[in-house]
Each structure stands twice: as structure tokens, then as C-alpha cells.
């Protein structure tokens, strides 16, 4: 059992972090993949979610806000709610902007959020970060705990996947994709694009906030370095584009694959002499860029490209249903 645990420890950790990135990619997919919103501030929502859950679930500490010691599920839900509220404000401010300007605005706001996290010591313990973040299933042995946490992450990925897949294949997804394709035409077809864009932005940001919270519980610590745009915004974007934006399966495959590359290259570079190892961090970023290039050369729309849903078949539908298919005068 001990051998098995040692053998499985690495894949378990790989899948756990990959799964957390999958959560964030599913969130970005709602914003970019479905609705065409260029959110370049993923790190900000990640930070809001991670710190919300950390503050609510850790025991009391004199240096920063906390000591609520609430159960982890409460932290996760609160992380989503806080991210959602922040997204409402940011969305309200920025969603009138066109896509490239939205990207610039979200970068700026995410940096503001990160600087708050870094400097407001009373709230977040500043650069020292918040240690001792609990995990669910604390009674189990370390390996069993890791395994249980992995299953929790995978269950959350599955629930979000099913929910987003149903939405995408229903008229909701169709309206969102129409807004992405042509705003003018979507408005001429009676769709309230501002309300829809806000809906997608808030929903996606809540899912990203949940991802942030899961990451905080997974590594039991959250500090400002963990919210670096390179580790969050950049990686999540690469993962979604590589996997296939607009495709929920792509939003799961992409992070698993890219995280495996990111993580396995660390195993290699760890063996290098120390002065080489220092430089190797940059080589990893380079490798990710190279992998993205190769993937996009072969699959221009990501490994799993977006596919329009199958139209509803006409023969097995209820024929006696009255003609109330939404004809509005």
C-alpha cells in the first residue's frame, strides 16, 4: 500500500492541479469560447476566490482577517459569490468596451486586485500569505486525503462540464454564440447583449473564483506569488486555446495536457545543476509557447474544435404541442 501510495502520489497531484486548471478553463470558455469576451484578468478572480475561501476557513490569526474556521464547502461557495459580486462591478464598468479594450481594462483591474492582496496586510497578511488552509477529509491519511481531494476536484469539473454542456446545447448557448459572432445582428434579433455579456462574465468569473479557492485548499497556502499572471492568466489562456475554445471537452483536455507538459518539464529541470535550474524556469515558459505553436499549426482551432450542436430531431418531438415556440409579435 505504501509503495502504491508513493507510486501514485505524483499522478494524483498532477491530475488534481490539472483538474483545478480545468475548472478555470471552463470558466474562461463561458466568457471567451461562448460569448467572445476577452478577459485578460483571470488572475484577479483567481485571487478573489482563493483569498475568500482561505480567510473564511482558516483558524484565528492576530495578523490578518480570519479565524472564522468555517467548513471548506462554505469557503468554496463564498469564493464563488465574492468573485461574482466583484465581476458584477467590473463587468458593469468595462463590458461596454469592445473586445481589445476589454482585455486591457481587465488586465488593469486584475493587477489592482493583486496589489490589494499584496499590500493590505490586515486582510491578507500581505507578502507572507495565508498558511494552514484546511482541506476537506482531514481525518484521512495524507495519501487518502490527496486521493479524496482529487475525487472532489474531478467531481466539481464533471458538474461544471455537464451544466455548461447543457447550456451550450440549448438556446442559451445559441444566443451567447450569436453575440460572439455578430453583436449588431444579435441586437437586431432582439437579444439584450449587455445583460447577456454581463451574465457570461459573472458566471465565468464565479467559476474562476471557485478554481482559485480549490487551488488554495489544494496547496494549503495562498500568497501573492500564486496569483502571478504567468501562472494563472497566461497558462489558462494557453490551455483553453490549445484544447479548443468553445468546446467544453477542449476546456478539460487543454489544461490536463499543458499542465502535464509544465509539470513534467519541472521534473527534468530539477535534475540540472543549480545555476542551470535557475534559468530553466524561462525554458519552461518557452516550451509552453512552443507547444502552443505546434498545436495551433496542426489544429488551428484547438485540438477539439468547436462543433455546433446537433439540431433537435423532428420525428420524436411532441407533435401535439401547441405552437408556442416563442413567436412574439
Amino acid at each position, binding site marked *: 500500500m505504501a509503495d502504491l501510495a508513493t507510486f501514485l502520489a505524483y499522478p494524483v497531484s498532477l491530475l488534481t492541479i490539472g483538474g483545478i486548471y480545468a475548472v478555470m478553463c471552463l470558466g474562461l470558455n463561458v466568457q471567451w469560447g461562448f460569448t467572445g469576451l476577452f478577459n485578460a484578468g483571470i488572475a484577479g478572480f483567481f485571487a478573489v476566490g482563493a483569498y475568500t475561501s482561505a480567510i473564511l476557513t482558516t483558524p484565528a490569526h492576530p495578523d490578518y482577517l480570519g479565524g472564522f474556521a468555517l467548513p471548506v464547502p462554505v469557503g468554496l461557495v463564498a469564493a464563488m459569490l465574492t468573485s461574482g459580486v466583484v465581476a458584477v462591478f467590473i463587468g458593469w464598468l468595462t463590458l461596454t468596451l469592445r473586445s481589445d479594450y476589454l482585455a486591457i481594462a481587465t488586465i488593469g483591474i486584475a493587477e489592482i486586485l493583486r496589489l490589494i492582496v499584496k499590500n493590505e496586510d490586515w486582510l491578507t497578511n500581505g507578502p507572507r500569505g495565508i498558511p494552514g488552509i484546511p482541506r476537506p477529509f482531514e481525518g484521512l491519511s495524507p495519501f487518502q486525503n490527496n486521493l479524496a481531494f482529487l475525487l472532489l476536484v474531478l467531481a466539481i469539473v464533471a458538474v461544471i462540464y455537464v451544466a455548461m454542456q447543457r447550456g451550450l446545447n440549448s438556446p442559451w448557448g445559441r444566443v451567447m454564440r450569436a453575440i460572439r459572432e455578430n453583436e449588431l445582428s*444579435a441586437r*437586431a434579433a432582439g437579444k439584450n447583449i449587455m445583460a447577456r455579456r454581463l451574465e457570461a462574465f459573472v458566471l465565468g468569473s464565479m467559476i474562476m473564483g471557485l478554481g482559485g479557492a480549490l487551488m488554495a485548499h489544494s496547496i494549503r497556502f495562498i500568497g501573492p506569488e500564486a496569483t502571478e499572471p504567468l501562472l494563472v492568466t497566461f497558462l489558462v489562456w494557453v490551455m483553453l486555446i490549445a484544447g479548443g475554445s468553445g468546446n467544453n471537452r477542449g476546456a478539460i483536455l487543454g489544461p490536463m495536457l499543458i499542465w502535464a507538459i509544465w509539470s513534467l518539464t519541472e521534473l527534468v529541470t530539477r535534475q540540472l545543476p543549480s545555476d542551470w535550474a535557475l534559468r530553466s524556469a524561462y525554458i519552461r515558459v518557452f516550451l509552453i509557447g512552443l507547444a502552443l505553436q505546434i498545436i495551433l499549426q496542426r489544429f488551428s482551432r484547438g485540438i477539439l474544435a*468547436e462543433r455546433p450542436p446537433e439540431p433537435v430531431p423532428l420525428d420524436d*418531438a*411532441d407533435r401535439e404541442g401547441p405552437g408556442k415556440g416563442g413567436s412574439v409579435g
Partner: protein
Amino acid sequence: MGASIAIERVSKSFGGIRAVDDCSFRVEKGSITGLIGPNGAGKTTLFNTIAGVFRPEAGRIRLDDRDITGLAPERLFDLGLVRTFQIPHEFSAMTVLENLAVVPGGQTGESLVQSWFAWGRIRREEADVRRRAEDVLDFLNLSHVRDALAGELSGGQKKLLELGRAMMSGASTVLLDEPGAGVNRTLLAKLCADIQRLNRAHGYTFCIIEHDMDLIAELCDPVVVMAHGSVLTQGQMADIRKDPAVIEAYFGGAADRGAGA
């Protein structure tokens, strides 16, 4: 039933250029009103101003007795006024069927929460919307490209899809911006017939911008001629063809070519 549109002293400028300048006319309820004029006369700008894309600097626009000046396109859709675009605005990465199915308002499945729980109802509505869309596709001779992406259609097919979206809307007051451009003659005749059928049998009101004078002559009564942002004259096509001011506006030779096309 369609509604009347009253355009009252509407002006809209871009920088120093007055694209629409103190323009007034009425589109009577139940009419097929033609809107013609040389390029740059301000026809499409006026359409955009009626349809809520631009807000006029001066003047009012009424739909029946309701002031709709500056209302957003989605509000106008709810009030039963829709428009098509001169340059097709299709949803490129969506199938032709989806382009039509997205249009009807108030679909249950447009709510994310309903999409999780109200599957049976959404399925029935989807079948209903699809049947309506298939009818429109049949009518427009687009059934064979039903599952193609709209971005892959030919220019003429995209024009037809524009019209198809207007037909899916259920709105009965329709602004058509050059519906005939790029559409083949056979289909154009069919299109004319259907616009007339929608008008006579169902009371639709149409306002049509078009450069094809034969199409205008066959369909429209009255015809409004715009030049330099305002109304030059209006009346029946037979009289307008003879009007020296109209021929002047089209610059002689251009008028002959336009009238003969």
C-alpha cells in the same frame, strides 16, 4: 398587423457631413414603401437611425403613435419592428439553421437555469422553432445548406439568410435594406411574390431600400426618393421615373441605367 412609421424632421451627421438632413416622410400602415436615391443619399443611415443603431440629433420617429426615437434595436424587436442589413450580418460560425433558430424571442431555453431543468419543454419548443426555420429554409431554397456554417454561404445566400431572420422574428413591420442585391432573378421574383403575400394576406408593413428599379416598380407604392439626406419627392413609380428632379439627382446617364436595370 404592421404599424406605420412616421419620420419627422430627422437629422443625423457624421463629423461635418449631414448624412440625413431634416428628413420627413411616412411609411403608411400596410404599405410597401420604396426608398430610392443615388448612393450617399442617406438611405441606409436613415434606416440605421430608425432601427436604433444611431440616435438622431434632431427630429422624432414614431411607430404608430409611440415615440421610438433612439430606442435600442432589441426594444424595437419587442415592439415588432425589425430590419435586415445591406451587407449581410450572419452568425458565421453557426449553422444556417441556428442562424434562424436563434431569432424567436422568449424561448424557455434562453435561460441557463431552465436549460438544466426544463429539458422536455425546451425540446418541444426547439422542435417547434426548427419546424418554423425549416419552412423558411424551404421558402428561400436554402434547405440544402441547412447544416452548413453561415460563413461558408455565397453572397446571395447570405442575403437570403438576412431575409430569413426577419421572417423568423414574427415582427410585422420590416425594414429591408437592398434585399435583392446579389440574389438571382428567379429567386428574386419569388422573393417579390412573398413580400406581396406577407403584405396582402398578413398585413405586414415594409419599407424597402433597393437599387433595382424594376423590383421597386413592381412592389412599391408609394416610392420615396431621397437625395442629400432629405426627401426629394414621393409618389408612384410611374410619375417618379419622369420627374426631372429625380433624373437630375441620379445624374442623367446614371438615371437611365438605374431605370433600365
